[in-house]
């Protein structure tokens, strides 16, 4: 029993650490109804394309809320720069939508998507 514990405790500990460090790719996937980041980005892109600025603004707020939820899950397995990069994109996107700046909104959305793709990789 003692020999079993001596070997199994380090193995279980290291496995748990590996799972924590690699959990980002799994935990960034939607677990509820309101935390699907790629889908929200797509919807905002469509709203910006058809210049529905009010709807786009609401969706940006939704994106921001979803993002805050996801950050709590992926913070242990992701780079701070990717997380901060995405947060900055959301802030700038909000500004671009407020000033109805189509090209600015597209730039921020594309960059945010890129940060999303790299998150936890």
């Amino acid at each position, binding site marked *: 029993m003692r020999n079993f514990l001596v070997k199994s405790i380090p193995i279980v*500990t*290291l496995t748990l650490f590996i799972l924590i460090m690699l959990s980002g790719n799994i935990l960034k996937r939607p677990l509820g109804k309101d935390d699907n980041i790629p889908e929200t980005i797509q919807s905002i892109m469509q709203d910006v394309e058809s210049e529905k600025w009010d709807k786009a603004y609401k969706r940006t707020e939704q994106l921001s809320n979803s993002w805050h939820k996801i950050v709590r899950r992926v913070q*242990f397995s992701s*780079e701070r720069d990717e997380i901060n990069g995405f947060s900055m994109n959301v802030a700038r996107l909000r500004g671009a939508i407020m000033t109805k700046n189509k090209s600015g909104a597209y730039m921020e959305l594309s960059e945010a998507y890129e940060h999303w793709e790299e998150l*936890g990789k």
Partner: protein
Amino acid sequence: MNEGLVVFVRSIIGFFSLLIFARIIGKQQISQLTFFDYVLGITIGSVAASLTTDLSSRAWPHWIGLLTWASLGYLMEFITKKWRYASKYIEGEPAIVIMNGKIMEDTLRKMKYKVSDIMELLRNKSVFDLTQVDFAIIEPNGQISVLKKAQYEPLTAKDMMVAKTSAGISTELIYDGKLIEENLKQLNKDKSWIMTELKKQGINDASEVFLATLNPAGSLYIDKYEDHIKKVTDIGDYKGPY
């Protein structure tokens, strides 16, 4: 992102990973480490530090670095244990720098040691006079081993033809006021024996004792919590906060 919390979790990952890897790599004493072992230790420690506080990159690549260095360290240890030829190449070998009292200049040059280095190492071994040295060997860990000439070796009981019994290794019977019954059994003693011995020294209970040891020759050492020493000798040479 709660940076404090992330650093806390990463610290736990780094600390226990390092502990497990260090246990796997081996239990060599610091004094036995070769120069490469030092470098290995410093690098692994540095990678663990980055894993903990460098939040600009993920913990995973740092952990892989830690694992790779630790695995290579283990592999090197395994190879040197199984293959003497490789061991000679990787860890180096002892080199005789003083032979029959004569300094081996070529060996010194090869090992990149100055005579002053050898003198310093000899002084560390309490040898201040080169004429006393028969052999001096630089070990792979950089330490020097000295064999003095026979006439300078200390007199031993064997030289005097005196028979001495081995004192053996002391075993703890009481530590921090608690009786260690396992050790008592090992020495074929029981609780009543130790209590009788304690009473002989005016001790009524094991809880009054900080440390009690017994060696195979039968001599019992007892240290009580109350030392009754009024003036403790201060070995400090200048005033400090304590």
